[in-house]
């Protein structure tokens, strides 16, 4: 007999999770503290997330997946735009690469998975818009929605932007060595975590 259950309920618990070190690849400031530095520009209009409402600089868990959310002081880069970076991955078995991120208008692109044996495989990364009152398009779960959005000269309490929790499937789970991101600066990433599911 078939039981129809919500997708969340059939998700396997993680057997192991490995947050990926992306500190060396952060290149953009999209989060600002209330003290405001004026450097925050998640998008081209200079909008930013308020730092006090994000878990900046902490190891957090969202939907049972740990993420290392970058520190954010409004000066140093706190996330990356996808510009073809090649990010080394920990030597670990992985069924999924979970990401925290968002896009400027929803978009999708392939990422390249590199393996230690020299092989490469492509998979899709799809990210929905961070813009307020705009839902997920690609099955993401909402990770964070702040109560306000920062503008260059004011804080807008009627605008609540989103950070999404997305995942990229890894068809061949053993031997991953690196992830090559697409050249798509509309895609922003805050954190990556390799996840191995329980058998």
């Amino acid at each position: 007999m078939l039981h129809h259950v919500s997708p969340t309920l059939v998700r396997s618990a993680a057997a192991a999770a490995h947050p990926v070190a992306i500190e060396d690849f952060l290149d953009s400031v999209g989060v600002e503290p209330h003290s405001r530095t004026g450097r925050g520009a998640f998008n081209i209009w200079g909008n930013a997330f308020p730092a006090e409402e994000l878990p900046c600089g902490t190891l957090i868990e969202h939907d049972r997946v740990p993420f290392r959310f970058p520190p954010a002081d409004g000066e140093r880069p706190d996330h990356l735009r996808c510009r073809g970076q090649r990010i080394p991955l920990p030597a670990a078995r992985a069924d999924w690469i979970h990401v925290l991120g968002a896009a400027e208008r929803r978009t999708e692109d392939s990422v390249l998975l590199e393996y230690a044996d020299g092989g490469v495989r492509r998979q899709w990364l799809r990210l929905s818009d961070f813009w307020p009152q705009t839902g997920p398009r690609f099955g993401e779960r909402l990770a964070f929605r702040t109560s306000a959005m920062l503008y260059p000269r004011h804080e807008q309490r009627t605008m609540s932007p989103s950070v999404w929790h997305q995942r990229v499937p890894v068809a061949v789970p053993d031997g991953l060595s690196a992830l090559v991101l697409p050249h798509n600066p509309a895609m922003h990433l805050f954190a990556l975590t390799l996840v191995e599911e329980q058998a």
Partner: protein
Amino acid sequence: MRVELRNIRPWRHDLGHCLHATMGVLLAGHGADPLHVLGAAWGFGYRSGDLRREEYYVPFGARSLLGAMAPHHPVSSRWHRPPDPDAAWTQVRDAVRDGRAVAAAVDNYHLPFRPAYRDVHTNHLLTVYGFDDERDEVLLADPVPPRFQGAITGAEFAAARASDNPEDHDRDLFFTRNPIDGRWLELSVGPDLPPWDLDHVRTVITANLAALEADRTLPDGYADDGAGLFGGRRGLARFLDAAAARMRAGDDPEVVDETFVVAGTVLAETGVHADWLATAGHTFARPALREASRLVERVAHHWSAVRIIVANARTDTAAAAGDLEHRAVALLTDQDRAMDLLARAG
């Protein structure tokens, strides 16, 4: 006197902007389905130098914005340019009093519900659906986040319509420096909108593909001329190629504004068309249309990338030329796949 027109409800597509949202609200107010009307067209056309610095710009829309957006339907829109601020209000009030909701151009700087309020000047389009003379209020519908439907004062509305829309800061990069001039827009819808059936869907897809493959614009059917008029599939490829070449040359800052604004209009049209195809495929049980919808949606997602590649290149266009070239190759490949599937899907 107080007038509040019924059937004014929010409508918005996430890949559209204020033009699609306002037209959607007004079409629905006329009893038409916004997605059926606004989602039918899928083509490409642009005339070099035609760009206007307004968020509601659409190529070949100077005579009729709605006509350019919905060339498969008997719909049109007409700008009114009142001679002075008094006429600007009287004309809009008369239309609403007579039962016709209208669109008004505004500068967000003067609208309390817009994030740009008393911050930056930028032009925008929204729906006027009522007024209250005694309370000196105007009723506005604006589904663009933060969604608003309600009253502001007559003075605020008048200021937003009379604004010169000056460039005070560098934040609104694309839609300033274009006076609002009290403009307002009147729609004509029908009579005899085509029925929403499979014959109509097939007719529309055939016409879209014919224009693309014949290298013609969808509205007005202008042929790509190999120079400043870009039309159809060839025009699309030439437009992207020319933009990348201008960016690589590095001495043409206008390429950023022009490519960004045109990409925004193509993104919107492509995204809404993808949903139109999905709805048609679902309604008429045609899986191939649903698959084509997904391919067209992928093309839209390339345009999301184009828009931001270009927008972030303002200080060094040459550095981003390669990204745009590679993106164009991928976009055109997916565009061709979508066209091939649509040709077989009807």
